């Protein structure tokens, strides 16, 4: 039984990474894409927390516990905390950039973006929209 449960965080991590990746590849809106990036990031939290988890152990706060009580690994929790801060920074920056992009040309569709803000190579594949131009 515990074998199944110890696999669970890994399955969850792979699932989150997969849907996050699918979301990024197929995204039609940069805010949605930022959310997908957060899903990928959550999968890294799951990996970290799954690694540090111990069955039957307490939270690593020894205020009212005897020293030597089995506790879950506090190091990975510190890593997750730091990672949350980094993720928040990146998300905030991304959203700020998207807001500016929306102000500039009103298009926030990643599929409509081309290098240098315009497409120069005529492409055979359909479905590519005319891009956002610089004013």
């Amino acid at each position, binding site marked *: 039984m515990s074998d199944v449960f110890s696999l669970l965080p890994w399955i969850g991590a792979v699932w989150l990474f997969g849907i996050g990746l699918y979301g990024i590849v197929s995204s039609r809106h940069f805010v949605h894409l930022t959310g997908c990036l957060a899903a990928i990031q959550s999968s890294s939290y799951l990996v970290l927390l799954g*690694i540090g988890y111990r069955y039957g152990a307490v939270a690593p706060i020894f205020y009212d516990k005897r020293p030597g009580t089995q506790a879950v690994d506090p190091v*990975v929790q510190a890593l997750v905390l730091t990672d949350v801060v980094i993720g928040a920074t*990146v998300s905030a920056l991304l959203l700020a950039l998207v807001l500016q992009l929306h102000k500039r040309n009103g298009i926030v569709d990643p599929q409509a973006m081309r290098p240098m803000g315009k497409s120069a190579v005529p492409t055979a594949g359909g479905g590519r929209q005319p891009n956002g131009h610089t004013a």
Partner: protein
Amino acid sequence: MNAAFADPAAWPICIVAGLLMLAGLLLAGAKIVPPVLSDILALAATAAAGVLAAVLAIRIGDHPALYWMGGWTPRQGQAIGIAFLADRAGAGAAAFAGLMFTGAIWFARGYFAGARNHFHVLMLLFLASQCGFFFAHDLFDMFVWFEMMSVAGFALTGYALRSSSLDGALNFTIINTIGAYLILMGIALAYAHANALDFSAVRAVAQGRPDDPVLIAAFVLITTGFLTKAAQVPFHFWLPDAHAVAPSPVSAIFSGIMVSIGLFGVARMAWDVFAPCPAVRHLAHVGLISIGCGSAIAGAVMALMQRHVKRLLAFSTISHVGIALIGVGLLGQQGLGGSLLYLAGHGLIKAMLFMIAGIMLSTLGGIDEIGLRGAGRRIWPAGIVMGACALVLAGIPVGPLDAGARMMDAQARSNGLHWLALVIGFAGALTGGAVLRVTGRVFFNLGPMTGEEDAAPTDDEREHANRPFAAQLVPVLTLLGVWVLLASMFARSSERFALAAAHDMALGADFSSRRALPHMTPILPWLPALVAVAIASVDLNRHRIPDVVYDRLMGLTRPGLHMLQVIHDSVIGEYVLWMMAGLLLLAGIAIF
């Protein structure tokens, strides 16, 4: 304070903390500190950081030292604390970063007028986190500095807030953030089996069970993340978009030092942490050499096909960093030393070239090679410097770039890889030829007829025109002066230093035989430069080539070139898929 100065091991933390504190102070006083003072303070700080790191590199010599923060030294074999490592590889890289930033901030004087001093704050954060990365001796610490540096880079890319720069910044942020999460997962896997994050502790565990698949998976994930920052094929798609649209002083930093950091990270991981695993050494050898060759060739071909000068330079960066990656993959100290020296030489030249691109933007009002034809005649001194830089890129046998290439070549030939000189020559000839073509067209009014570069993406960007030409040329000439010093007076000592840094990074180990071969390329040393001149002359004289010959040539090359253009002219989703394909490739090499 005196005690801190007596112990060189404490210098790295002083450098990093000092830069961070100054950045905080400048940000707090953004409204009251006059721009001139910001310039002076930022310049003094970056120069001081570089000089301190250089002195540290010399003082620390053969005795790399660890500094455990807060006195948390390992107890009973358990390392819970976080350490900074002062060795010649890290200190040398930090000194070079200091030089690059000093040059870039100097060049940027007046560029960001009216934008308060946020540029200086971001640049100081950028440098501080790079130094932290170079000195880190702990997997997670390294990751945090890496991410801090990335965020500063993302913000600097989008600084101009134009449509194309926002697009480039978004692309850069998304691809690199996915790479960063892969690094984090790799670190988590390494921690799962090593129960430690300190380099030496993880290495000790790897020594104990060299065939542990979890450790190998950790290396694959971490390498993917670092190769994304190093912009190696197929993780490179963000780089041309980001480099082309970032403000030119920032592009100089990106190509000069930031991209090299990914390579530094891969080398540290391969040599310092995971070296005891035979599968990792196999992966580093086969995987890094093939990815490096792919990048060297693809980057060079793409560079020749560009018309946006900064985009052209960005592709040439991919190509040259690919060559340095081969040096890491050779798994020998001489190759690693050559790689480090090559990166330094490339960084100097590329920073100068991006500054000249910046001069074109501000004095000629454009960056499009075809649109600017002949416009550069009144600023001909910049053209002469650019032509000289192009020849160095092409590989004329002078200076640190060539010395590094020769060291890598000697290592490769003692491993039996005699074709490395050909790859180096190919990349040099094409990238050098591309830059020479730009020089000829913009500064000497040559090349009325355009070729495949006509179809490349371009932009009608301009930068602040309020800066006099001469003032902008001075930092370029200063970097040129540094290059001349490294090529003449300090040629031998820089080679020796690169070897010593590689020795420190490899912890004295050497995984490939080294015979004392003379540093000499089997082909004529001047050949790549001659080919570069030939390529540029052909490109600039298309109108003189008979139609029959020209059409045959174009017909042969067009389908392949067109496919490359289309691949590089795509959306973020496809870039992410390429990245995952690269990850699978690395994993496949590790398994088989």
